[in-house]
């Protein structure tokens, strides 16, 4: 199923560098800011290494990253394991033909898009984002990849907020995270 690398000594260094910003983007939300991890070259490298170690022998051919913070973690992982990087973007950012998937927000809905032809049938895909909250965005990402015929092997995030139960919205797909947050 899914796992969290609690026993790896690098996790403490990563977790301690995540900054919590209260009441952002709105009152009541404790925002998990990963930019402080990126300021520490050791912690950032450890983050990427932990994902690369897990995925390098799993024959992953596609790493899909969710705009915009997924673009920070996805490409270094893709480069290290020799996979394609595919950006999943907000509407109207990708040029050319796209497929789109709508998903619910707390109020209203949003959309994620992927290029037609970015991913081929039977490819093995990883979906990467900085954080999983409700799981809505990750679920939309998985749907895009599956509609293109790929197999989503796993979703990978730096941080999970377990209380929001995003893990349950992944249609049984495994989720791998480095850090859990309250």
């Amino acid at each position, binding site marked *: 199923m899914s796992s969290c690398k609690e026993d790896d000594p690098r996790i403490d260094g990563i977790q301690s560098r995540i*900054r919590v*910003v209260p009441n*952002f*983007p709105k009152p009541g939300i404790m*925002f998990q*800011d990963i*930019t402080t991890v*990126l*300021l*520490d*070259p050791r912690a*950032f*490298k450890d983050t*990427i290494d932990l994902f690369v170690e897990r995925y390098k022998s799993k024959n992953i051919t596609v790493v899909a990253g969710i*705009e*915009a913070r997924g*673009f*920070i*973690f996805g*490409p*270094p992982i*893709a*480069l290290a394991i*020799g*996979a*394609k*990087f*595919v*950006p999943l*973007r907000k509407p*109207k*950012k*990708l*040029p*050319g033909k796209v497929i789109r998937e709508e998903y619910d927000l707390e109020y209203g809905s949003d959309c994620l898009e992927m*290029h037609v032809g*970015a991913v081929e049938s039977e490819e093995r895909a990883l979906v990467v984002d900085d954080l999983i909250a409700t799981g809505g965005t990750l679920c939309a990402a998985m749907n895009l990849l599956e509609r293109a015929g790929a197999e989503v092997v796993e979703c990978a995030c730096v941080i999970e907020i377990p209380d929001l139960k995003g893990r349950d919205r992944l249609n049984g797909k495994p989720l791998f995270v480095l850090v859990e947050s309250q």
Partner: protein
Amino acid sequence: MFAAENGLKGDPRLKGISDAIRVVPHFPKPGIMFQDITTLVSNPRAFKDTIDIFVDRYRDMDISVVAGVEARGFMFAPAIALAIGAKFIPLRKPGKLPGEVISEAYELEYGKDRLEMHVGTVQHGDRALIIDDLVATGGTLSAAIRLLERVGAEVVECACVIGLPEVKGRCRLGGKPLYMLVEPRQ
């Protein structure tokens, strides 16, 4: 300056990188031949070559900060930062970065936009590189330079994968050296 004029003339990797970029006509509006780097990042060989060329150039320049411009700059800058052991700083559209930020305005073809950076991430004495996928007018990069200089960093160079004709023949932007890998494809 382009890589081919600056030590990499004839380097076969440059052709591979150029060939991997897709041109999408009339995006985002009629008349624009959009240089799409998504086909570059989905080509593992060409993507690796892109990063390697930048890393080879910057690894011995004592760079302590690599700033990437949202969102396509995020696809290139972190890998460079990781390889040279520098901090990665995201430069973002307004309202995205939590906590205290500074911001700089820049001109668009119609209207203005702003770029933001976190306060306290860059110190006086930091040597910075700024990365984006493409440079056209240089408005965004100039705003990025101003942000880093306001907090006392020294901008060593700006680097982009693609340099549009507006910057052809120029070696500098906003007073700083500008390094580009390839010209746009037709």
